[in-house]
């Protein structure tokens, strides 16, 4: 992304930033002063030209919703390693801003299809890994005790209520 600071008039989409502020972890994007410390320690940036946490923060500061929440958004390349959070001198917690953006993309319906596949199990069964008969067999072979009961009803009860979810804040576009 090129931001032509001198020639072009810069339009900041504050409505998008207000939306981001309301999502858990989103508010810290305001603290970013574009120093690039996050880029220096980011493994995804080291191995791919497509990912740059400073540029993601810059887009957030400018409110570039389409680029951040569109189908081709680079946010999904984040390795979730927390190096940026560790290094950031401004407590931006860049990974948490990226998680906030991911939550917004899910809400918008633009998250990658396999995200649901990777996380559906938890709300359905209480566990992220499928509990197949092979699992029980493997545990038995190793002489491990049977699995503890998983309180799925309890989990579903605390998850079902939508009104407390902060990502529910939708602003008409």
């Amino acid at each position, binding site marked *: 992304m090129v931001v032509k600071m001198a020639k072009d008039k810069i339009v900041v989409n504050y409505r998008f930033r207000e939306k981001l502020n309301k999502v*858990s*972890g989103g508010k810290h994007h305001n603290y970013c002063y574009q120093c690039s410390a996050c880029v220096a320690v980011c*493994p*995804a940036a080291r*191995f*791919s030209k497509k990912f740059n946490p400073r540029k993601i923060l810059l887009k957030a500061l400018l409110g570039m919703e389409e680029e951040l929440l569109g189908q081709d958004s680079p946010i*999904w*390349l*984040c*390795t*979730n*390693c*927390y*190096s940026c*959070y*560790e290094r950031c001198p401004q407590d931006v*917690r860049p990974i948490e801003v990226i*998680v*906030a953006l*991911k*939550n917004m993309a*899910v809400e918008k319906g633009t*998250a*990658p299809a*396999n*995200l*649901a596949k*990777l*996380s559906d*199990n*938890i*709300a359905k069964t*209480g*566990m*992220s*890994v499928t*509990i197949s008969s092979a*699992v029980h067999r*493997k*545990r038995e072979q*190793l*002489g*491990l*005790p049977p*699995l*503890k*009961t*998983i*309180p*799925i009803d*309890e*989990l579903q*009860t*605390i*998850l079902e*209520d939508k009104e*407390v*979810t*902060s*990502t529910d804040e939708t602003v008409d576009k």
Partner: protein
Amino acid sequence: MQKESRGTIMKVVPFWGCMMPLKYPQMELALRNTLPLLGVELADIDGFTCCPDPIYFKARDKMKWLVTAARNLAVAEETGHMLITMCSGCISTLKEAQFLLNEDPALKDEVNKRLKKVNREYKGKVIIKHAVEMIRDDLGLEAVKKSIKKPLEGINVAIHYGCHLLKPSQVMHVDDADYPNILEDFITAIGANPIEHYEKVLCCGKGCMDDELPLDMTEAIFVSIEKSGADCMGLICPTCFSSFDLGQIMISRKRGKNYNIPVIYLFQLLGLAQGLTVEQVGLHTHRIKADKVLEKINGSVKV
């Protein structure tokens, strides 16, 4: 195992999570067989769900992630014992959830409103530690040394820290994120040599939603370890384990390169040093066979 135990020094509640009991039960086996030898009693309880996973579930809805984590914390809190985790994903979620809830009382109230529906409450008192952290801080490495029957002399272990045990340090409070030594000290205590390699703190790449990027990262780590002269990798995270054990098969298939580096969970190494068998620590279940390093271990053993 109990008959060989040193007697209980501390009772803790284990949080097994999903990856260990369901995907890599050999890790659970290693923990159940090694920790009692250090004087740790594992008081299993009903009531836990997935931590939940700090990557995909959190990416979908952070509030639901937080509420699920807070429920697990509340369940543990009711026991009055320390909660220990052995998985880097679980420790990441549970410590971050605790950090966020303690940092923001309004958020804690909001979460507790949900928990009230199932008669639970998160008060903020539960102590959460990773097993290696508990060993260092509550038992002391002397307890590890005392449990050793066959020190792994001459075994060079390339440590892979993984990301979530250490970072962010203001949340995890485990060690220096750039120059850690908690795992080196552990390896030294069991008689082996921690081997330096330049990608020791690089991420394994598993959390990245791309086909090639994670492989590039794991391969960079293999190249680094290959040059280090290590006999095996030593790690503590089941997700990293998947990147490296299955990952070597993937890299062999996709890129035609064979690294053949045995990937060993630190508690499996501890068990071998405590005189447990390969089967008792579940090392026979790994895809990358550890025969060479086991030969070296058996050769170096002074019975």
